[in-house]
């Protein structure tokens, strides 16, 4: 190895190590923080303390936690399942069926992707008010499930789906929905895995829209509950850290479970 290449190597490791440290440090901070009192956390104490169980107890008692967790899992889970189903059907449809308007409609969709949520917030809220479903699960889930980004993602990935498979299945007498269910879905496993991570993450962490449509404490999600705890003038950081861990754990677990397929799935989509 030439000296120059050696320096390059060293710089690479240095850069990556610093990046990895900065990426991981807040996680470490959150875990240590959960065991310290609020005053210690603000004072920057970075060693474990003895307040863990106290913080957990305070956190659990500050809300109807069972209900809050149920809300979060229901909204994120159902939302993810519906989004994946609808978006993958749309992506499949766009790729498989040729029609005169296909590219025009798709172009229109991409244009809509650039419309910020802020622009839709108020009309959507009024729409929900007209349907009389403010403060319900439907109101939180429905607007998100036709995600243009995920449709786009599935369409890109569907380009890699071999059309011979579809033709063969057709000759065998399978109907379109059967092809989709028994051929397309298993073949596209990795794509679904990557999309699951992204969609679940977005749903689980979503803040602005639930903040607007969910108005009573019984309907709050974990994200909203932690935000409420953090909003006061003297937030109890120890308790909030427990909440932050609770709010991060599900997405973290899903990510680690699906990690291998995740990169594979992304690979298919950017081809």
């Amino acid at each position, binding site marked *: 190895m030439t000296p120059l290449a050696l320096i390059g190597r060293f710089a690479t490791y240095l850069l990556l190590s610093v990046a990895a440290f900065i990426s991981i440090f807040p996680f470490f901070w959150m875990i240590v923080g959960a065991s310290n009192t609020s005053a210690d956390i603000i004072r920057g104490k*970075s060693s474990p303390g003895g307040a863990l169980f106290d913080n957990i107890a305070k956190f659990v008692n500050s809300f109807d936690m069972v209900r809050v967790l149920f809300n979060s899992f229901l909204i994120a889970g159902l939302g993810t399942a519906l989004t994946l189903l609808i978006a993958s*059907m*749309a992506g499949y449809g766009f790729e498989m069926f040729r029609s005169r308007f296909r590219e025009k409609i798709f172009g229109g969709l991409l244009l809509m992707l650039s419309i*910020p949520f802020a622009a*839709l917030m108020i009309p959507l809220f009024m729409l929900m008010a007209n349907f009389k479903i403010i403060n319900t699960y439907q109101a939180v889930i429905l607007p998100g499930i036709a995600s243009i980004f995920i449709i786009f993602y599935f369409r890109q990935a569907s380009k890699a789906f071999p059309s011979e498979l579809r033709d063969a299945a057709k000759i065998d007498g399978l109907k379109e929905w059967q092809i989709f269910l028994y051929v397309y879905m298993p073949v596209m496993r990795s794509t679904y895995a990557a999309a699951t991570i992204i969609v679940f993450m977005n749903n689980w962490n979503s*803040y602005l829209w639930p903040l607007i449509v969910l108005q009573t404490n019984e309907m709050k999600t974990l*994200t909203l509950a932690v935000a409420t705890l953090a909003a006061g003038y003297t937030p109890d950081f120890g308790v909030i850290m427990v909440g932050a861990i609770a709010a991060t754990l599900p997405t973290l677990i899903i990510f680690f479970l699906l990690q291998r397929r995740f990169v594979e799935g992304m690979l298919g989509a950017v081809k």
Partner: protein
Amino acid sequence: MPALVLLGIFMVYPILWSLWMSFQVGRGMNFSFGGLANIIRLTQDTVFIRALTNTLLFLAVQVPVMLVLALLFANALNDSKLWGRGFFRTAIFLPCVTSLVAYSVIFKSIFAIDGIANQTLLALHLIADPINWLSDPFYARVVVILAITWRWTGYNMIFYLAAMQNIDRSIYEAAKIDGVPAWARFWYITVPMLKPVILFTSVISTIGTLQLFDEVNLLTMGGPSDATLTLSLYIYNLSFKFMPSFGYAATVSYVIVVLVGILSFIQFVAARDRRA
């Protein structure tokens, strides 16, 4: 196609509705047609100008820094001989899985006045006095930029990494045999090959930053004295915090639409030019 029906109800209809609303004036539920009144109000609204400047500032600083970092990390991690690849990749992606609320709170505690950030900087003698991160207009902006960069760099990195793995290895081998140095291989092979993905991530990041809401609302509430107020936060305040003025809020939101349109167009043109 159920997706199109849903999009019709939850996208097209609200889009048209908010366009109609942007020409309405009045408070609460009393509307009347105001013509261009809202647009005239925009030009005289100092809070709006402030929010617009802040949003553009965040965009101009954060998006390029983040995308360059993501590209560098991805390039380093694409080297199959790199030791600890899996670890670095997971570590750098990890911030993406945290909830916005969780990481905002964590950043808030790290950047408290006698928090760990100040203590470290003091210990290293990089600063003489503790910085009042969240109450100083300049440093509050710095913290917001740090926070979004922390959270989203790994996300973009994954797109680049996936795209890099689609590049044919033999191109690099050939360049290596011809004696092309590593930086030149990166600049003349990797970057041009990734152009579509870079365009995609820059459009997505631009849209995301122009809609920045969660972080500023949780970290600083737009303060101190509107130093971190963004357009989305202003729209939210206009519609839900004070006496609602939906019409004017809708007008402000169309400012974002127009900005996204202009910037995406510029990015597409820039990408096309470099190809020629």
